[in-house]
């Protein structure tokens, strides 16, 4: 039979990766946050489309999911850059010059905290403590922790990352 009315939630069909995540939790609404974590792990952020599909699958209002995704700082709604730079601005890192490190990265890469560079390579974010105050000021890049950072070593780390990437691309090309 021909459908007379278009469905109110007319979305693209969710892709298979998304489907497996929802199935993993047997589409239970109380597992919503776990699903969001898994989606973020898969796509590195929470794409708008996936939140819409999730709202459909679990029959939870979209605003509820959006509210949760904006409430927790660990969820990202924007696509992050290829490299994630996290600068600690906790008390210990703050007194040892954490803000100066953040400023230096901002200046060198022309990116504000919480934003991504125009070429989509680097994302900069600041956090309030990483729990390793003894080696402050701390910078985390793609899960790797760099301690006792200075404005000079920041430049070296960025240079090294660029070199590594060029090498990789050179091999691939």
């Amino acid at each position: 039979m021909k459908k007379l009315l278009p469905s109110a939630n007319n979305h693209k069909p969710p892709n298979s990766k998304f489907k497996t995540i929802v199935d993993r939790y047997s589409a239970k609404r109380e597992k919503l946050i776990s699903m969001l974590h898994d989606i973020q792990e898969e796509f590195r952020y929470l794409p708008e489309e996936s939140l819409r599909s999730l709202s459909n699958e679990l029959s939870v209002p979209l605003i509820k999911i959006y509210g949760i995704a904006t409430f927790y700082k660990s969820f990202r709604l924007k696509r992050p850059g290829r490299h994630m730079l996290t600068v600690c601005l906790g008390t210990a890192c703050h007194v040892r010059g954490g803000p100066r490190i953040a400023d230096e990265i901002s200046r060198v890469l022309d990116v504000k905290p919480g934003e991504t560079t125009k070429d989509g390579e680097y994302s900069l974010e600041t956090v309030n403590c990483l729990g390793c105050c003894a080696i402050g000021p701390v910078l985390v890049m793609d899960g790797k922790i760099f301690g006792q950072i200075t404005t000079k070593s920041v430049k070296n780390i960025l240079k090294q990352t660029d070199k590594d990437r060029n090498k990789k691309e050179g091999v691939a090309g």
Partner: protein
Amino acid sequence: MPTLKIDGLDVTVEPGTTVLEAAQFLGLEIPTLCHMDGLEPYGGCRLCLVEVGSGDKSRLVTSCTYPAEDGLTVRTNSKRVLRSRKMMVELLLSVCPSSRTIQDLASLMGVQKVRFKTRNDDCILCGRCVRMCKEQMDAGAIGFVNRGHKRKITTPFNMKSEVCRTCGGCIYVCPACNLRCQGPNAPGDVCGSCLSLQPTCTERFDDYMCYLGPTGNCGTCIKKEEN
């Protein structure tokens, strides 16, 4: 059937009744803002605070969310309650000084000035619109996003929601975005003169009465005559 004591009066209510409802059943007035009949209690505005228990163990709770328990002692107008309510309304007023509903509540509680920096927002995050949209309109188009000082009410992704039918229910129940009293006072002032019950218009003019109440203290009518 729980029996509780409110302001010295014994009252027996159905299980599941809130303290606010029990007090209203007795005819006691408790000011409310985020509470609305037909919507789930929220307990966000903290204006319906009452003192529960006695002596050192007494504490302030929001009556709109507190269930009536057997043997509960409630005081709705103790010194501590009145002082706290006054503070709450002063804080609300500093966020939204131009709302008529909040101005009226402030006058009712004798708040004459605001000691805090005024923000001139148009939302006090009472959540009335959110609950209205979800519970009565069955839409769930708006809700709270972010947290802390960035918390606000909006639609998903700040775009027009697909489930919104533009029914206007959210605006209808909003206590913050209604216009202030168009009296002679500057915006943000708390005049409260509509609540003092001394008609002055009749002193000045034989049969000039404000249609809004027994008073003319606001001065708008007098101004008109002078012009």
